[in-house]
């Protein structure tokens, strides 16, 4: 009698991997806090929706992905882009609407995409990502690449027909797809405890014949472990998984949101639950990584964000001639 067991991948993270994860989370945090500050100056066009507080989700999931894999994001997509390896300077330029941006400044915050990195795009359509991932997962399955598709979506999107149809399709076709429901408690200003009939989004997985699990979204190690198992399962032909990641976003739904619908939960989360604080305490407490090494990452990331903002501000805007480029895309 023998059994093949899944590996508890968290226990195998090297010091280098831990530093990489910290760098990704810190980059997301500093990127978002800087966009928060810069948006207030009025220089950034359009809307921005910030991912601060949710870093462990994008990082914990995307740290298992490689060039075979694709992700679909949401309107709150900066964290997913950074975690999937999209160039930070190009992202900042895109948010400023500049020609040097990821999409030549024509998309802005809600449409950052980089197909070369397997980042299919932030998405202004709530529930727009899951159907895309069924497509990319079907392609990976048909072509036998071993790739997977990951759809990030929020608690609001969990109630959309597109999401529910995608869960069904992924299960019927046994697709290598992972659905990551990022439940930050509010769809704009509507509490998920009110608007999600089953209360736990993960509970819906059973109805589609796939595993559904809940993880603490403030805990990188919890997300990393659950995502690792789901992605391994998908790569090996085991089919789709729904992971519900629970946490709190630190900023409003969009920049400018007065947040009259929630009380002091953000202060509590920042103080007691913050993913970066907890990560630092645990990896330095165990001796795997030193405070000095993490401080060095902080400095390097701060310099990167400063440079990204400065270069974005200096970059040219799209010209009149750019109006007729990127209109049609051939695949």
């Amino acid at each position, binding site marked *: *009698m*023998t*059994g093949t*067991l*899944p*590996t*508890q991948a*968290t*226990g195998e*993270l090297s010091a280098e991997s831990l530093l990489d994860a910290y760098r990704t989370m810190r980059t997301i945090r500093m990127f978002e806090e800087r966009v928060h500050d810069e948006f207030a100056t009025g220089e950034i066009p359009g809307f921005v929706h910030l991912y601060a507080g949710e870093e462990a989700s994008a990082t914990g999931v995307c740290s298992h992905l490689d060039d075979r894999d694709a992700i679909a994001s949401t309107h709150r997509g900066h964290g997913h882009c950074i975690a999937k390896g999209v160039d930070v300077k190009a992202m900042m330029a895109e948010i400023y609407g500049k020609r040097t941006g990821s999409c030549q400044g024509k998309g802005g915050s809600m449409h950052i995409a980089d197909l070369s990195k397997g980042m299919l795009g932030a998405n202004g359509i709530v529930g727009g990502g899951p159907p895309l991932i069924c497509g990319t997962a079907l392609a990976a399955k048909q072509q036998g690449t071993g790739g997977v598709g990951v759809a990030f979506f929020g608690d609001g999107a969990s109630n959309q027909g597109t999401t529910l149809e995608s869960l069904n399709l992924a299960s019927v076709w046994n697709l290598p797809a992972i659905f990551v429901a990022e439940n930050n408690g509010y769809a704009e200003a509507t509490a998920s*405890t009110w608007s999600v009939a*089953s*209360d*736990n989004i*993960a*509970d819906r*997985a*059973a109805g589609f014949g796939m*595993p*559904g*699990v*809940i*993880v603490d979204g403030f*805990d990188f*190690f*919890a997300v*990393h*472990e*659950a995502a690792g*198992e*789901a992605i391994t*399962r998908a790569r090996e032909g085991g089919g789709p*998984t729904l992971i519900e990641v*629970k946490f709190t976003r630190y900023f409003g739904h969009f920049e400018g949101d007065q947040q009259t619908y929630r009380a002091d939960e953000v202060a*509590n989360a920042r103080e007691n639950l913050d993913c970066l604080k907890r990560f630092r305490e*645990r990896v330095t*407490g*165990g*001796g*795997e990584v030193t405070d000095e090494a993490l401080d060095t990452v902080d400095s390097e990331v701060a310099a990167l964000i400063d440079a990204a903002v400065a270069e974005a501000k200096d970059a040219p805007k799209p010209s009149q001639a750019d109006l007729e480029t990127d209109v049609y895309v051939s695949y």
Partner: protein
Amino acid sequence: MLASADPATTVGIVANPASGRDIRRLVAQASVFPTAEKANMVQRICGALGVLGIGRVLMSTDLGGISAAVLRAVRTRRDSEAPWPEVEFCELDRLTESAADTTHMVRRMIDAGARVIICLGGDGTARVAAAACGDTPLLPLSTGTNNAFPRLREATVAGLAAGLVAARAVDVPTATRRASMLEVHAGERTEFALVDVCVCTARYVGSRALWDPATLTELYCTFAEPDGIGLSSVPGQLCPSPREKPDGVALRLGPPDRARHVVHAPIAPGLVVPVGVLDCRPLRPGERVELGTTHGVLAVDGERELEHRGAHPATVCLRPDGPRCIDVSAVLRAAAHQGLLTDIQLNPTEAA
């Protein structure tokens, strides 16, 4: 006997919204225990308590939808339905959505007069409720992933047993059994386990669950049943120790190719795996054992709980003074013996 309880008699019900949701649904096909079913169980308990005339239920609150579903049921009950106790919702100033909610809720219920605490969850939930219960009888009902401690029981029957104990129709010595527990000291933290404590080489608590035996080095159990589920099933097959005995068991684990015994054990729902056992011995009550690591994760009742990085090794000790748990079978046997659920009619209507 029916409907004869003092109307002031109070039963507390605490239901964990997070139980039955962890990664073992992904790695081991563990069962899903939906919110709706937990709320249904509460309603079945209330129905049984109402029949016994229990006047008041203190119900836990949560953000997972259980208490909301119970509130909806309370508000939509019809006059034609059998009466329920008054259901009061035990609200905390702030729900933390952590084990602390269960602790605070149980303490409040006991302070407010609950004579029995019914707890819906798995081993983890029962452990937390037990630590807060003091001497108040506890009835753990299984709605979790790994359920070595709570028995699988129909909630209606459990409700009857809880109501009979709360109403003092069956005396506490007959109705309850004192469980053992393991006390773990790791640095400044103290934890309790109702079933097992395990030392794991993983560095982080991560997603909490344990499913890879290659990471386990030491195991201590309050009891070990041959038909158990979870880590205690390993000694359950090798050196069984019934719940009723004061002794527990202690095992050193290792790679199957270097172990004297390899037990094919159901260490989690859906996972029957080979576990290497280097040695196995009885664990005596009061014996304090120093664990063989200063750096590692300690799991209690099947869940990674503590990341221990102390200068000194953690210790574990088997204590005989665990929670006082209601023995549903014993209560209903006593009820049958005393006719507590049986009416005798002196002039029954003759069948036509």
